[in-house]
């Protein structure tokens, strides 16, 4: 299952100092709510991304707690003001304990 889960990020590679940039993220994930039943009437166990965090040079800049009502393939975007070059680290945490990661460098000119 984990092989099907792929994070995608879109971050401008370069930015001007103190420019406000938009960061877009999407992760392919079924977001199984735990409320549905299969054809045998058994409950399909919950499996969602429950947390997403973003850190810039190790310092947290964005955090989201996700709930079961959120659609499959959750898309999140936010704005960030960059004053120095550095790395953005994205982390998604799954109900089953898996952690999916992505990293992108930004050069501030």
């Amino acid at each position: 299952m984990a092989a099907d889960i792929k994070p995608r990020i879109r971050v401008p590679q370069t930015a001007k100092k103190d420019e406000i940039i938009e960061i877009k993220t999407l992760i392919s994930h079924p977001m199984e709510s735990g409320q549905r039943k299969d054809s045998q009437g058994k409950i399909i166990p919950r499996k969602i991304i429950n947390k997403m965090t973003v850190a810039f040079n190790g310092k947290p800049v964005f955090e989201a707690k996700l709930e079961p009502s959120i659609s499959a393939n959750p898309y999140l975007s936010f704005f960030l003001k960059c004053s120095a070059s550095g790395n953005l680290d994205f982390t998604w945490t799954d109900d089953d304990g898996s952690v999916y990661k992505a990293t992108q460098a930004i050069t501030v000119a």
Partner: protein
Amino acid sequence: MPRLRSPLLTAAAALAVLGSLAACDGDKSKSAAMADSGDPLAQYRANPKYKAFMAGEKMSGYVFASPETQAMQDDDFENPGMLAVQDGEEEWSKVEGAAGKSCASCHQDAAKSMKGVAVSYPKFEPKRGKLANIEHRINLCRTEHMKAPELKWESKPLLGLTAYVEHQSRGLPISVKVDGPAAPFFEEGKKFYYTRRGQMDIACAQCHEQNPGMNIGVENLSQGQSNGYPTYRLKWQSFGSLHRRFEGCNQEVRAEPYPRGSDEYTNLELYVAWRGNGLKSEAPSVRR
């Protein structure tokens, strides 16, 4: 008494549907547009934004979608259908089967070899003796040339490959041929389109030909064009084929659906594609 009950119920259900078809919703702009011309499609025709999504009187499902759904489709990053295209891109060069080949072994770069291919499907396939759509064609390639087993309908790899192939034709006008050997299948598809079916006793044409732009319950009826398929459907929370959509329509009129990939649906697919000839392919689209 039990004999009387079911026809009564059917009549009541049909009345309920007709009632909602005729009802005008509370949307003021829509009501105003209708008051001017009495035509619920006038508001779409007047909007210059939709020009690229129309061909004469034909309108893509995009036109009938909400602005939020349209925005999702407009941005390739936000469009979850692109995930399926990505899957397909990986499948494209995956070697499978006894012949030790992948799609790329014969067709090389899909961006060149598959450009404009999907818009001409479904078409008559001599090896099948009947129509083939993209899914059938992929499976035919697998069994004939790759010596690999067929992919299951609606499975992730088949949806991915279909999406990938269809995506190469995005922006090109749909142009299916309905003469020659395809003609009898086209006629079958047309018959399907105009045949009333199910407990509701409703044909495709009653919603999508006679009432596009009207509301059915809370839903906005489209012209039922297929140029965006395969599509990421928000209701499904996943990517799906046109035949899965046909199945949904059949269930909504309380009819027994045909299997996905069946001749009935493939003939219908050709007829529906022909109705949209000239509309630009949007694969992968986002629909509600």
